[in-house]
């Protein structure tokens, strides 16, 4: 967030949630009670799938790693308006939880989709700004939405959800709207997600979708580029290679429209 200090006479509200396996305490503030309530309501709506009643709920859940139990604590003063505040919050919160999980999870820049019943999860890896959100927004109408930003994968293959609001460009403003997954019509996974498949996606106009297997050494290089805090992991190459093997290897998928990736996602889920 930009300047975290807000005037001491601002009205404060708290929202607690857990995402990417990390408990988060948001300390919201605004000049008036009405504005603070409006901000709190907007944050709760946007981050609805991550909300918890209290930090103790998150701290008593089986943690991915016990040392990730300390909450991220963020001050969230009202900026120009609620939309702008939500926009900055999304980045700050994501950076905060990624930093907290550095060295504990394999964190890929990826969209992830889960079979709602079995939890089998396909991770679609792509650099920022090249189609992750669109893929998630399109494909998570059929499969469960796990994330459109960062897939956190534990050594045992669990995929830790980061179901952040979707950032959607609106023609009337330069600030991306933060839309809750429910408001975007996405499916909420019921079963715990686990790694079933990995694909690198490239939106280069190929139609029909062209898929090719990527040999593991090259996959490590390609996925390493899209990994947060790769050097903080313990034996990162072995960690990643083991999970690549568990996923049955990595595919490269060149495509034009996100909807055309459906058969690939279905195949990777079914194979698992």
């Amino acid at each position: 967030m930009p300047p975290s200090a807000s005037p001491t006479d601002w009205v404060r509200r708290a929202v607690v949630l857990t995402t990417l396996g990390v408990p988060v305490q948001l300390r919201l503030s605004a000049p008036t009670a009405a504005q603070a309530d409006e901000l709190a309501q907007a944050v709760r709506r946007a981050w609805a799938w991550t909300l918890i009643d209290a930090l103790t709920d998150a701290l008593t859940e089986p943690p991915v790693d016990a040392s990730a139990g300390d909450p991220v604590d963020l001050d969230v003063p009202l900026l120009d308006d609620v939309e702008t505040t939500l926009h900055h919050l999304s980045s700050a919160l994501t950076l905060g939880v990624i930093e907290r999980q550095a060295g504990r999870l394999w964190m890929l820049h990826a969209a992830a989709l889960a079979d709602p019943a079995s939890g089998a999860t396909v991770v679609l890896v792509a650099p920022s700004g090249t189609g992750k959100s669109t893929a998630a927004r399109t494909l998570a109408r059929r499969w469960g939405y796990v994330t459109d930003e960062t897939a956190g994968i534990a050594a045992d293959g669990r995929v830790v959800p980061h179901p952040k609001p979707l950032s959607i460009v609106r023609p009337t403003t330069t600030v991306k709207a933060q839309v809750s997954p429910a408001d975007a019509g996405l499916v909420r996974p019921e079963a715990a997600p686990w790694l079933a498949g990995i694909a690198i996606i490239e939106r280069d106009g190929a139609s029909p979708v062209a898929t090719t297997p990527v040999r593991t050494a090259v996959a490590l290089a390609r996925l390493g580029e899209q990994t947060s805090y790769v050097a903080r992991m313990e034996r990162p190459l072995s960690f990643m290679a083991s999970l690549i093997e568990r996923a049955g290897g990595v595919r490269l998928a060149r495509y034009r429209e996100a909807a055309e990736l459906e058969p690939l996602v279905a195949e990777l889920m079914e194979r698992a």
Partner: protein
Amino acid sequence: MEPGVMEPGTVEPGTVEVRRVPVDDELLVDGELVVLRGQDVLVLSEVASGALDHLGSEVWTSLASLTDAVEARFGLPDEGAQAVFSLVSDLSDVGLVELRRG
């Protein structure tokens, strides 16, 4: 970088010596060596992997000795010494070896 160690791209064959730079992780996958240095993951060719095998990070190895080792392991074309020099120059450019004049 120690005194005498040459900047990548500034070296010429002659009496060059080479040593490895420690990496953060490495893994042999289906015969290909993958290394992590900083945030970069690099896949090395079989010959580059073999050359690194012959080098230590504490001791300097002469280019002539390295050329002999690579030649014995892989065979080399007539311009072998130049080819090995080109190889270590590339490895120097990506930070996997250091070069100095012997």
